[in-house]
């Protein structure tokens, strides 16, 4: 993408940047600037990632031995519930859209802000309110239903703080809906002159597809949680058969949201990976249109496959057959994406900067996560694998291997743009490699122990499974460093990092044509786009 209206902005003084418009609390908490709101989200979800990660660390420590010697079974049940609730709703769902999406989407379409800046700030307040209610519930004693809240355990039997946690998630859900709405309207109405739909960077396509899911699926979660809360408090009989309800109805409603939610987590990472790969391949993404359509197809098909979570639930064999078939269909666009990324490397000029290492890690882990999803989509095989560690491993490959690698890759790629500082490249490459190794060591053994039959959510397990759990916990200890290191050196770089130029990677895209960090209104004049996305001149290197 090239902008004719903008000259070099290297001359823009640092005090014109969005960061210079004030550092007091008020200037942050009442800001309408999408970039500052992106920062607010980043700080918030980093704290929440810390809570969810600490719970995971305790889980892995406890599972070192088959007898749950570290914590009681009650505590263990609360730990995995906290881990799931926080990581899914308070980290993964908002991770890329609310941070990088908020910061970059308006800039990448050449706009001054999102369509509804006030709504954008309101959505952050909703998110914080939801997080506070949830944290209150955790401090008050926690919840022990798992993040899935299956009825009638959640509605009638659990004596933990189910209602409070559900309320927290319910509130945070509205922040998702408002963010999605804002992005959809922004992409439709605020694209710069010349920026037609098929010139949009794939990151924008990813945000757009994700937003559609956020807006369409999240209300179903809200309804489900509300019905669950009402059954818990007033005893209306919707899910509990003792009250005349149907427990499978809960699962249908829950997965109608929660399966598309997986795509809320992974599609943004696909967008990030596409940006990084094209930049460090100096090549346009192979099959750009196919990539954009694949993301829309994933978003659409994603709504039709929820029943594959219920193959052994008691749903009819015929429903299972249809859901299995549809699941194989949704896997095709995902496969196409992996092949297209691979083809992008052909006759490219590849360099291996830290964001690229993260993106390569993303492809590897997402590929394994996606392929093992096919095992689970297979009716005859899922019977053995369902609710075992095979499932745990599979969705961590997709959601942590895929989404979190994408998040870290994106954070590194755009860090100079966001903060105006460069991070230490050597440490960043080391962290990317460490994360990849630690991740595989943690989660690959879980495929094996899953096929052996080890059930999820078991603090106490037969001793013959221990060896795989020891591998897994050892991997987790590497993974801790993989996640803590970037936090340390990125913070360090804020003060000591080299000052970043406007376009440190020689990358294409409107965000690289404005200063680092960008001025408050992103551009001094509306940019005009005259070329396709990823028009990399083949001779250029990312390093000038």
């Amino acid at each position, binding site marked *: 993408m090239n902008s004719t209206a903008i000259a070099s902005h290297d001359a823009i003084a640092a005090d014109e940047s969005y960061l210079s418009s004030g550092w007091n609390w008020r200037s942050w908490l009442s800001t309408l600037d999408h970039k500052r709101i992106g920062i607010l989200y980043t700080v918030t979800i980093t704290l929440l990632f810390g809570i969810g990660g600490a719970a995971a660390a305790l889980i892995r420590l406890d599972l070192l031995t088959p007898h749950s010697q570290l914590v009681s079974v009650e505590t263990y049940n609360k730990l995995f519930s906290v881990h799931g609730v926080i990581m899914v709703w308070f980290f993964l769902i908002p991770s890329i859209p609310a941070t990088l999406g908020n910061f970059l989407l308006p800039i990448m379409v050449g706009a001054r802000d999102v369509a509804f800046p006030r709504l954008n700030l309101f959505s952050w307040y909703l998110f914080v309110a939801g997080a506070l209610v949830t944290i209150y519930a955790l401090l008050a004693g926690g919840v022990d239903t798992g993040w899935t809240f299956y009825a009638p355990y959640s509605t009638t039997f659990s004596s933990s703080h189910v209602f409070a946690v559900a309320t927290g998630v319910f509130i945070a859900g509205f922040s998702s809906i408002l963010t999605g709405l804002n992005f959809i309207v922004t992409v439709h109405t605020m694209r710069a002159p010349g920026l037609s739909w098929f010139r949009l960077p794939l990151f924008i396509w990813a945000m757009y597809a994700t937003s559609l899911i956020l807006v369409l699926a999240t209300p179903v979660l809200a309804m489900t949680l509300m019905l669950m809360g009402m059954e818990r408090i007033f005893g209306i009989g919707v899910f509990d058969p*003792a009250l005349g309800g149907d427990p499978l109805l809960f699962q249908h409603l829950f997965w109608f949201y929660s399966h598309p939610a997986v795509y809320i987590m992974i599609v943004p990472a696909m967008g990030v990976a596409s940006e990084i790969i094209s930049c460090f391949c100096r090549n346009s993404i192979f099959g750009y249109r196919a990539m954009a359509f694949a993301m829309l197809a994933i978003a659409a098909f994603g709504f039709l496959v929820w029943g594959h979570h219920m193959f052994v*639930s008691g749903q009819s064999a015929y429903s299972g057959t249809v859901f299995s078939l549809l699941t194989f269909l949704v896997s095709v666009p995902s496969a196409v994406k992996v092949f297209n990324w691979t083809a992008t490397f052909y006759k490219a000029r590849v360099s*291996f900067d830290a964001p690229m290492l993260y993106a390569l890690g993303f492809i590897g882990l997402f590929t394994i996560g996606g*392929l093992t999803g096919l095992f689970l989509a*297979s009716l005859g095989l899922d019977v053995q694998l369902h609710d075992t560690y095979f499932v745990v491993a599979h969705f961590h490959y997709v959601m942590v291997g895929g989404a979190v690698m994408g998040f870290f890759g994106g954070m590194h790629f755009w860090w100079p743009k966001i903060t105006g500082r460069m991070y230490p490249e050597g440490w960043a490459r080391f962290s990317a490699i460490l994360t990849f190794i630690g991740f595989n060591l943690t989660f690959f053994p879980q495929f*094996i122990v899953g096929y052996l039959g080890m059930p999820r959510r078991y603090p106490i397990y037969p001793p*013959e499974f221990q060896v795989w759990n020891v591998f897994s916990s050892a991997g987790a200890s590497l993974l801790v460093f993989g996640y803590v290191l970037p936090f340390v050196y990125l913070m360090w770089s804020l003060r000591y990092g080299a000052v970043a130029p406007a376009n440190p990677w020689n990358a294409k895209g409107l965000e690289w044509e404005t200063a680092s960090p960008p001025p408050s209104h992103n551009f001094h004049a509306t940019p005009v786009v005259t070329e396709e996305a990823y028009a990399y001149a083949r001779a250029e290197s990312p390093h000038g």
Partner: protein
Amino acid sequence: MDSLPFFPDRASTMAGQVDNLYFAWLILSGLVALAVAVLIVWFAIRYRQGTAVDRTVGEGPEHEKKMQRIEIVWTVVPLALFMAMFVWCTEVYYRNVTVPKNAMPIYVVAKQWMWHAEHPAGEREINELHVPVDRPVELLMTSQDVIHSLSIPGFRIKQDVLPGRYTTLWFTANRPGEYHLFCTQFCGTSHSHMVGRVIVMEQVAFESWLSAHSNVPTMAARGAQRYHQLGCDGCHGAQAAVQAPKLEGLFGRQVPLRDGRTVLVDERYIRDAVLLPSQNVPAGYEANMPSYRGQIGEEELLEIVEYVKSLGNATHEEMP
């Protein structure tokens, strides 16, 4: 390789079939993953920044067409492979859920946090399940509280156990021994304690195990006792003044209902007829049976089911 286990025991007729699916997917997905990895590494090294290799790419409509063909190929080929696997996997699944007619029934009631099993012969056990080798066994299962799931990895089978309804699971164990039985649906505090053993015995040993407590009344006998205690025979009995369906020879028959449906009288129907009689009235009868909801536990209800079943022998063969 006991210290580093990779595969669970193969102790049922299903196990080999499911393992074949697993191996097929391992090979297929392994090849795809390997191809992607090899290509990316090879391209990334060969075309790394600074190497002097030929990077000329075709242009023009001819080239576009070629690229399009490539895209079509790598969309259609995986689709075809996936569809073939879908057919195979679904076929195995239907074999796994279709209960053979001659299966030996065992009744299972799950509750927080234990497994109760009851054999028609009257033997009852907790967290253990004794079964004969080489004979199809059907588990008719229900839960007294929350959702549980019965999983026997050595048999490659699993089925959720729901409150308020019956689900079934069947297997033919083919190797004597002891195997894990897990609850795989999170069911509360002691979920991980809700485990047990399946003990597969030679048929002779199983018969003698069953008859070890020959003084225990059969399930049907216990069911008959409850049937009288609850006063069911006041209406359903031969001398009853009230008009109610007679239960002899009823089990396994197709029966028309007052609302126009025709239902098969199986375990599920008997359960529904006892708990929700007004919604399951046979054609030609008044809806005057009271509901026994809340007055009868799941285990007692299963005994009554077994009693009604015992009144209606010779039924499965008549079914179309």
